[in-house]
């Protein structure tokens, strides 16, 4: 058996690498990883949770999926004012303790007020009745609306990092006839985007939560939410009782 000079050179290099003590080798690998992450950015990591979609999506209606996605309301209001869409759909969310006791209006009502304040005609806003306890319920509610409106298409506005998860939820909750009529548009948070999220605390938190939610949705499917008694009196009396 003959060895080419190139093979001998590789062999020599391997030998010299083997001679480097293990801790130094480990540190070297970490250094290479850090340099590659810094130079190539965090885009490959974001690609795991973000759905690439042409913007803006082409649909007659916009549905705001995340109740606390402020930027989604702004995007929807802009489209409505430009007459690019016919209407905005809002799902009804489960009212919890502070809503039930009247400290704040229901989330969909807050959203409607926000859109009206941004110049959207109140007739263009449609609140879909039927309380949704989680995002899967929202998917089913959108499916029902699409079945009731067979010629309409919907653009679902959600947080950018939640877009792949929403795609998965819609794949499971919409039917074969309604799914092609829904497109997903991820809206970027003003504080960070898919390449700069790791520089901000909020970005890291959002990315981490999105990864956990996506993995859970993919591995487990729909989350089972327990039925909760939202009475303030009960919570207060339990608070003074024995600790958990």
């Amino acid at each position: 058996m003959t060895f080419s000079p190139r093979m001998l050179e590789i062999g020599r290099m391997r030998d010299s690498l083997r001679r480097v003590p293990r801790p130094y080798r480990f540190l070297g690998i970490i250094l290479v990883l850090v340099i590659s992450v810094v130079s190539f950015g965090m885009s490959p990591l974001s690609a795991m949770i973000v759905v690439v979609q042409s913007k803006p999506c082409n649909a007659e209606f916009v549905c705001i999926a995340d109740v606390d996605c402020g930027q989604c309301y702004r995007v929807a209001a802009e489209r409505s004012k430009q007459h690019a869409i016919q209407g905005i759909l809002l799902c009804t969310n489960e009212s919890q303790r502070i809503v039930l006791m009247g400290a704040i209006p229901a989330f969909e009502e807050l959203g409607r007020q926000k859109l009206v304040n941004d110049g959207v005609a109140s007739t263009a806003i449609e609140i879909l009745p039927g309380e949704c306890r989680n995002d899967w319920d929202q998917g089913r509610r959108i499916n029902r609306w699409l079945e009731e409106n067979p010629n309409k298409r919907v653009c679902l506005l959600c947080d950018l990092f939640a877009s792949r998860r929403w795609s998965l939820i819609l794949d499971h909750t919409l039917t074969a006839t309604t799914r092609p009529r829904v497109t997903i548009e991820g809206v970027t948070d003003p504080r960070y985007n898919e390449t700069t999220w790791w520089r901000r605390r909020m970005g890291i938190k959002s990315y981490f939560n999105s990864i956990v939610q996506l993995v859970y949705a993919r591995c487990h499917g729909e989350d089972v939410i327990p039925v909760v008694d939202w009475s303030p009196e009960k919570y207060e009396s339990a608070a003074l009782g024995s600790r958990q």
Partner: protein
Amino acid sequence: MRAGRIITSRRVKWTIAVVICLSAIGMLHKPILISLAHWLDVGESPRKADYVMVLPGGVERRPFVAVAMVRAGLAKGIITDETETDPANDEGLSPTSDDLLRKVLRLRGIRDDQIQVLPGHANSTWKDAIALSDFMQEHPQATVAIVTDCFHTRRSSWVFRRVLGAEARRVFFVSARLDTVDPNSWWTTEEGLITYLSEYLKLFFYVVTDRTVIASSLAIGVAVGLIWSLWRRRRLKQKPTKPSGESESRDSSTIESSDQSIVSIP
């Protein structure tokens, strides 16, 4: 041949160790995960204090514990701190955390003179602790019960102890239980996973970015490195050197014996 045997036995040992570890984790995962959740909760039972401080956030739970304590006569007033606005507040989608908290407290029958909002635009537990530190300097005898979510008590007590120093003995933590997540089965729900995993992530960041922790880790790292290199040097010195030509003689003896055997066959 001998080297091959050593590698194989090492592999077998490693495989057995991994299998044992995995089966132990499989059998004990439930108690481990439950204890991970309970480890984060260092809250005490509600007892008498001059004030109750409600940390910003968790408005569905935290203010109600404070209200219960005031109503039971365990505290005379409720304090909280001003918070930084987030995009949802700026967009008018929700009131700021301190506004909402005040509203909830009023609706639950707490008078305005019983509520005190500490100045400062807090956006982290560190800033909450700084705000309380200023308050405690103005009230040198006051004791404070700090109410926060059960999973948040360990991190916040760690932060408050760092910021308050010796004054930390005048505060204690009371846990607000979660409505939708059970600490005994948190890993089975999406919300539970997010709550507890992100809390561990935050705790990790808080600990690794702490100057004292960084300095002590560096010191330990250097010490371990020095001990390791000394041990390695000593071991190399102690290693008995092979007598020269040992392997050669062994090889030659083999050849001789084989030659003899070849010779003896006929």
